[in-house]
Every structure is written in C-alpha cells, then in structure tokens.
C-alpha cells in the first residue's frame, strides 16, 4: 500500500508526462516544443526518483535537462526566427502520424493490458548507493560495466571531435 502522497505525486507526474509530450509534438512554435520537452524530461527524472534511482534521476536532470536542452535552445535560436511558427500540418501527414501512433498505442497498450501480467507492486529493494554504482561501472567481473563505460568514453570523444569538425567554419 503506497502512501497517498506518492499516489498524488504519481498522478501529477504522469499527467505532466502525457500533457507535455503531447504539447511538445503539437505546438507550432519550436522553442515552446523544447520547453515542453524540458518539462517532460523533468517529470521523467521524478519518476526515476520515485522508483528509488536517485543517481539516475540526477543524471537525467543534469545531462538531459541541463545539457541537451541547452543545446536545443541554442540550435533553435540559431536556426529560426523567434516567434516564427511552422506551417500547419497537412492532413495527410497528420493522418500518417496518427495512424502510426494510434496503432502503436493500440497494439502495445493492448498487449500490455490484456496479455502481460504487469500488475504487481514494486518489490522492496534498496536504493543502490553511489559506491555500488561506481564499483559496478569500473569493475570488470560479473555485473561489471567497464567495457561499455570505456566504449561510451571513446564515443563521447569521437562526438566531440566530430562536432568540432562538422560545425567548424571552413
């Protein structure tokens, strides 16, 4: 039995996710879309906190909300005039999008609700502490993630170089 507080929190968070997701893809002003995305990302971070993954929630806020969103905003400001609205969607395109997304929703939702047994409550589990996480990242044994960590490092390096190369003025 969860506390009433967490249920209220859940309600707020899920509503935020749903509403701002929808808004993010339907608004015609691109800067607003980025802002709505920000809210969604924040709500996601809250979900992580609710599920006892504080580190992940922190990463989500720092990297996504803090880093990526800033990039978006810069890019948007660089490439479009403020206040400029994109042209309205053609009905054909909207129909395509709707077909795909509604079908997705239908098929996945149906299989989630009708065919899968996900109606159990969250089992008790300890919040993984930072030490545990750090050891796991840098260990090479079972449940060790050194290799992906290094791979990600190299990837990030490549991205940095790539970003510089691509964006540099000729």
């Amino acid at each position, binding site marked *: 039995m969860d506390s009433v507080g967490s249920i209220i929190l859940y309600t707020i968070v899920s509503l935020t996710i749903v509403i701002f997701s929808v808004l993010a893809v339907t608004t015609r002003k691109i800067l607003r879309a980025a802002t709505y995305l920000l809210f969604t990302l924040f709500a996601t971070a809250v979900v992580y906190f609710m599920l006892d993954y504080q580190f992940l929630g922190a990463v989500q806020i720092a990297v996504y909300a803090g880093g990526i969103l800033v990039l978006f905003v810069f890019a948007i400001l660089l490439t479009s005039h403020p206040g400029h609205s994109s042209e309205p969607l053609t009905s054909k395109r909207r129909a*395509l*999008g709707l*077909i*795909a997304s509604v*079908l*997705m929703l239908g*098929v*996945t939702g*149906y*299989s989630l609700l009708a*065919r899968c047994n996900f109606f159990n409550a969250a089992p008790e589990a300890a919040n993984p502490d930072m030490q545990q996480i750090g050891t796991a990242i840098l260990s090479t044994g079972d449940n060790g993630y050194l290799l992906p960590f290094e791979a990600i490092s190299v990837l990030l390096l490549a991205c940095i170089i790539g970003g510089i190369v691509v964006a540099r003025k000729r």
Partner: protein
Amino acid sequence: MGITLPLLILAIPLFMFLLLGIAGVKMSHKLAGWLGCLGMGTTLVLAYTVALTYYFCPEFTAETGERIQTIVFNQTWLAFTQNLVISLGFLLDPISALMLIVITTISFLVHLYSLGYMEGEKGFQRYYAFLSLFSFSMLGLVVATNIFQMYIFWELVGASSYLLIGFYYTKHSAVAASKKAFIVTRFADLGFLIGILVLSYYSQTFDFLKLTTDSQWVLASTQGATFMGASVLTWALVLIFTGGMGKSAMMPLHIWLPDAMEGPTPVSALIHAATMVVAGVFLVARMFPVYLLEESATMIVAVVGAVTAFYAAMVACTQIDIKRVLAFSTISQIAFMMVSLGVASNGNGDVCHHGLGYMASMFHMFTHAMFKALLFLGAGALIHAVHSNDYTAMGGLSRYMPVTRWTFLIGCLAIAGIPPFSGFFSKDEILSAAYAWSPFMGVWMTIVAAMTAFYMFRLYFLIFRWDEPDYGHHTPHDPPLPMMIPLVFLAAVSCVAGFIPFGHFVTWNRMPYDIHLDPWIACSSVAVAICAICLAAYMYRTKNPLPEKMKNAMPVLWDWCHHRFYWDELYMFITHKIIFNGVCRPLAWFDRHIIDGTMDSFAAVTNKLSRVIAPLQSGQVQMYVFVYIIGALLLGGITVLCLI
C-alpha cells in the same frame, strides 16, 4: 573420247568470264572484244569437233544403229546422301551434241556481231564477260548428266540473263525488266525444284541416264502414290515442267520475255531467242522417257504449248515494237516445240508415229535458233541504223540496207514455213505429229502457223515499206562487217538447214529414222502460209485502210491483243497489290507493332513498375519510419494476437 576437249568446252568460257570480269576493267574495248571472240571461237571449234565426232564416229553407235549416250566425265560435286549425289559431268548424246552446235554457233556469231553493235558502249568488257558466263552456263546446262546439275546451270543462265537484260543498268526499264525476268523464272524454278525433290524422293537418283533408261521402274517406285487425285509422278513431272514453262516463257509465265527485250539486241538473239528460252523444251526432251510414262503430263505439255502458241501469235499481230513482235514470235515458236513434244506420246508409255514429235521438236529447235537469231540480229542491224525499236521510225530501208533486207526476208520466209527454207521442214514435221495425235491439234497448229506467216510479214512489210520517214542527213546504212558476217551466215544456214536428214541424228530412242514429208499436210500448210503472206502484203505493203478498219471493227479484241491480254497488269496487281501491300506490309507492321511491341511492352511495363516502386525509396526518413513502424506493428500485432 578423252575428257580434255569436253572439259575445255566448259572451261574456256568460264575462264574468259573470270578473265574479262576481273581484269576486263584494265583492258581496252578492242582487246576485250577480240579475247571474247577468240575464246568463243575456240569453244566453237572444240564443240564442233566433239559433236561431229559424236555423230559420225562409229564408236558412238551401237550394233543396232542406236546412238550411245556417253558420260564423258562425271565428278561428284555434292553428295547429299548415298544415292542423291550432284555430279558435274558431261553427257554426250544426240540432243546435247545438237545443242553444243547451236549454242556455240549462235554464241560465237553474237560475240562477233557485238563487236560492231556494242562498239563504244560503256561496259563493253563487262558485256563480253557476261556473254562468256552465259555461254558457260548454257553449255553446262545442256551437257548435264543429272537433273540437279541442270538445275544448277539453269539458275546460272537465269542469273546471266538477268545481268545481260539489265546491261543498260542506268535505265529504269532495263532494271525492272531484268528483275522481272529473274523473279518470274525464279518462281518457275521453285516448281522445278519441288518437282526434282518429289521425283528424287521416289526414284532416289538425280541421274538422267538412270531415270531415262528403261524408265518404267520410276513409275513402279512411286508405288501408285497419289496426291489430290493425280499420281505423284504426274505432279513431279508437271512441277518440273513448270520450271520449263518459266524459262521457255509458256503461258502464264511468259510475261518476262517481251520485257527482256530491254537488253542489247544481240543478247536477245542469243539468250531470248536461240538458246536459253529453249531450255524448257530441252528439259522436257531430256526427261522425255519419263514423261512418256504419264499421259496427263504430256497432255499438259501439249495443251500449254498449244494455248501459248495461239496466244503469242495473236499478240504478235498487234505489236508495234519490232523486238516485241519477235519476242512474241519466239514464244509462239517455242510453244510449237512444246506441242511437238507433247504430241509425241500417246500416253501408254509408248510413242506415236515413231516419236516424230520429239524429232520435230528438236529439229525446230535447231532451225528456229538459226532463223530467229537471224531475225533478231537483223532487227539489231535495223535498230543500230535508225536508233529506234519502233517500226514507225522505219520504212524504205531496203534502199539503204539491202543486205539486211534480204537476210531478214530469208528469216521471215523460214519462220513462215515456205519451202525450201529450213522452217518449212521442221514446222511441217510438227504439224504432221500434231495431226497424228489429234486432227484438232493439227488444224489448230496450222492456224497458228498461218498467223505466224501473217505477223512476220506484217513486220517485214512495215519495216521495209515504201514511204520513209525523214532520216535527215543521217541516212541508215548496212551494218559494218562484223555484224554483216553473222547475218549472211545465218541466212545461208536458214536456206539449207532444212535438208539435213535430221532423223538420222536426233530421235527419241536415238535410232536413225527417215523423215517423210506428208504431201497433204505440207501442201496445206504452205498454201495457208502463202495466203497469210499475201494478206499481209495486201494490208501493209502499201498504204491500206484495212488494218484501221479491222481495228475499229473489233476494238475489244484489238485492245486485248495490243495489251497482251493484260497479263502484265494482272501480275502487277497480284504482286504489288496483293503480295506487297496485302502480305508484306501487314507483316512488317505486325512485326514492328505486335511482336516488337510485345517485347517493348515487357520493357515498358518493367519500366513503369520501377517508376511506381522507386518513389517509395524517397530518402524521406519520416516515410521510412512510418513504413517501418506499420510493418513492425503489424508483425507485432499478429504475434501478440496469435502467439501470446
């Protein structure tokens, strides 16, 4: 007899053809002409040697007096199967020896004559090369040992005739005429070829000697097979005769011969009067023992001949181009020979009247070659003098060209059948044979003979009539010596050739035989001929309104005769309207639009389809995502619904 002489008879003209054909361009006209004459002269001497040896050397006569058919040499040329072998060889027998004489004589005279006639013409060397080629082919044809050899040379004479008719190749009419001649004879040769195929299938041989010696077995070999009501042998013989009809210009395949007069006149004399056109007669004569087996085949030969003879004589009465008249007279005379062969058999595998018809046919072939060559060469001299083929451009020529006139007259008398000229004797034999076969045929042929006399003298009187057109300062004159010699020589031959005891040399069974003139037939035909000549003299010698009146009295008949009974128009209609426009064009259209269209439409459909499919690969990621998602969801949905 050694093989050297016979081989040389064939080899010299061939060599001359190659020499003049390849190196002729570099030669002067004189050199080429004299080389040609020299070559032909040598051949003439050799051929006479061979022929006379054959006739008079006892070596070639059996105990019974029968002349022996001798194969001098026979070289395998192409072996289809064990039995069906084409050989090139040299068969010496009475008719081939006769033809050797005829061909080489006329050919040599024409070579000589052309020195004058063709003087200064462009392509003089080419002309002599073609003449040599023709002589070679014709000699090869008559000495053929098997029917396929004959077919080979048959085609070769056709080709050389094509080349010579089209000698003046810059003239449209000459080109058209040569084409027509080749194609019409080609069509006939198709029949000949199929006939050979049918005959050889049953007899399993091409060889003349095998076919004609005791030929009863040929009939047996067909085992009584019939096709569409006629026996297979009849079919074969009729088809082979079709080939002969084409070459010998029998109705309805005669249309090429009048047009062939577009060629130089000496060529007409050589090819289209004396030698090539009698090849059909020669073919039937060569196969005569086989023809004896089938009454219906000989019947067809006789009937075709009789109809053609009459038809050609009628047309000849109305032509104004002197060479055309001679051409139709040739057709008519060859038809005489055909009739004569046709009436030589009574259809029981036996001959009637001692094979008189056969002998008469060959005799007429010989005499006709001489007097018709004479007439053509005479006509050539006239044309040479007045530069026109049209009798209206002539007149009063006897004053300027006495030699030509007298020799032409001899020719006319000979063809009209007035004794003692050669034509009388041979034609009389033919009439006898015809009467013996059926009185109706006799009367019919006598009428044709009368018509012959009429149109020939019509021609004669029109050419040498009193009133003369204005020749200007360029008065006609007798031809130069090279042209004169052949005229005089042939006239002399036409005077005396009738007295040759022909039955001693050429008969159907090669047994010597004495000719008897039937006085009644002789008298009646001569009387009829003289009447016809008188009529012609009355109508044409001086200005006389009778011809006009007759023309106006029977306009339709005259019109049809004048237009040769519209045969050419009929053929034009069939070939151009029906075959060309009705078959070829639709087929070509069909090919381009239906067949090719189908192939193209395969390509077009593929192309269209690719254009339909290609936009799916638009490069728009969003589209890809959409398609991918839909596909994945469908798969996933199905999985969910069915499996889980």
